[in-house]
């Protein structure tokens, strides 16, 4: 309870800094609006229902992209983590694709697949898959050697090893990776909305930035922050439930 109060206090401190920075004119109001102006834009946008619809669109895109990314990331990660054959075939290609920016891939994807929401979704999944994938591969590689020996002695099948030793052992890493993926998925969703012209907070932020409406831009950022916070808090609760054994 007390730490919650502290958490809010820290946040309010940062807000105060923002207030001072914008009012004292450290940064031009054109780019850093005052908190009040942001609040007004936020209220207007929500009143008109437009921002709410945009937030919802971005939120669903983020979650769908993240779920897809997590599924693919864990599956591929587990495959690479346990099978050296799969590693030999797949890993170099994946490592080559990892540094390709979604912002540069989107134009290609648009040309090939058109401006469909599903295309954006696949790019979101592609962009946010890496943290989960890397964490899963590492989690599998870092199984305590003694436990690997236990598994060998019990002659656990490959799949049993994955489910009973590999995955639980990788779980802390996977959950940390999924937490990152969630954020990346939000960011790539926003970028996708900007580049592939899909309705959502990304597009509204882009248009606000283009027309130099800083307060609207910040209203969008505030909503992104809230979405990020809410989803992360949700995931943290899940994490606590799954990692009970770490700190019983």
């Amino acid at each position: 309870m007390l730490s919650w109060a502290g958490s809010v206090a820290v946040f309010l401190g940062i807000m105060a800094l923002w207030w001072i920075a914008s009012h004292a004119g450290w940064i031009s109001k054109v780019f850093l609006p005052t908190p009040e102006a942001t609040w007004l834009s936020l209220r207007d946008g929500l009143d008109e229902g437009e921002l709410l619809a945009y937030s919802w669109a971005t939120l669903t895109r983020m979650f769908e992209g993240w779920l897809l990314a997590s599924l693919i990331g864990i599956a591929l990660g587990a495959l690479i983590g346990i099978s050296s054959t799969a590693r030999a075939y797949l890993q170099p290609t994946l490592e080559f694709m990892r540094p390709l920016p979604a912002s540069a891939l989107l134009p290609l994807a648009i040309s090939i697949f058109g401006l469909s929401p599903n295309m954006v979704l696949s790019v979101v999944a592609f962009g946010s898959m890496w943290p989960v994938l890397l964490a899963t591969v590492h989690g599998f590689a870092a199984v305590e050697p003694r436990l690997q020996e236990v598994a060998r002695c019990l002659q656990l099948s490959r799949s049993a090893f994955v489910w009973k030793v590999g995955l639980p052992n990788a779980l802390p890493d996977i959950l940390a990776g999924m937490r990152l993926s969630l954020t990346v998925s939000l960011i790539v969703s926003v970028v996708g909305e900007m580049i592939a012209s899909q309705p959502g907070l990304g597009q509204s932020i882009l248009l606000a930035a283009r027309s130099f409406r800083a307060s609207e831009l910040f209203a969008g950022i505030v909503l992104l922050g809230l979405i990020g916070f809410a989803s992360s808090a949700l995931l943290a609760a899940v994490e606590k439930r799954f990692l009970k054994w770490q700190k019983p």
Partner: protein
Amino acid sequence: MIESIFRWLRPWWFPAIALGGFEWYARTVGKSSDALAPPTAAINAFLSAITDGSLFSATAFTLGAAAMGLLLAAVLGIASGIVLGLSKRTARMAFFSIEVFRPVPSVALIPLAMLIFGFGLRMEFSIVAFASFWPLMILTQAAVQQVEPRLLEVSHVLGLSPAQRAFKIILPAIVPRLFVAMRLGVSVALVVAVTVEVAANPNGMGYAMMIAQQSMDPGLMLAWLFWIGVVGYIINVAALSLERWVGRRMGVAA
């Protein structure tokens, strides 16, 4: 003999199929496209970019910006990740602020950074630093939370100072996970650097790609995209061998 050739070929199957498919697509369906070109055209464009030297200066700029941003992010991210990992209370205090700021997309900061720094290295590396700070911090925090509790008790019993505890117990203990975080950080840094160049900063590989696109040379654009992948791949291979080298030094799988 033949078997060893097959083994050596294994990593090349997927790229070969993907490239072949793309070549076919670009030559048939996408023949009249202004945004697509077959990989063979990209190879030609790539060769000319090597010969005129533009490849290296653009690559150097992007890598420099990404490296500086990553360095800053690594120092700050690892330090705060350790603090947050060790102190539950600090973690709870900072949770709200962190989770609110973390999802701010770096692209949304480009106008702000541009206003403060203008074009050039500083605006790019500050955005790179912002973007790669978060994954480094989160992964470091997760890594610290998984350090063998007995080792932390050892450090308490020996009366190690906080600095000693950080450098002698925690950092070495999280090295394997830190490498994972760094590899992720490297690709985030590279992705963000290129994105900033695509969107605003007239320097580096992203900018070169943008020029190629606007001057209607999709082959060159693809060549740049491919080159970005190659650069990222090389960095990753280097990071992996460094990881193995450090691992050997630290008695892992000795």
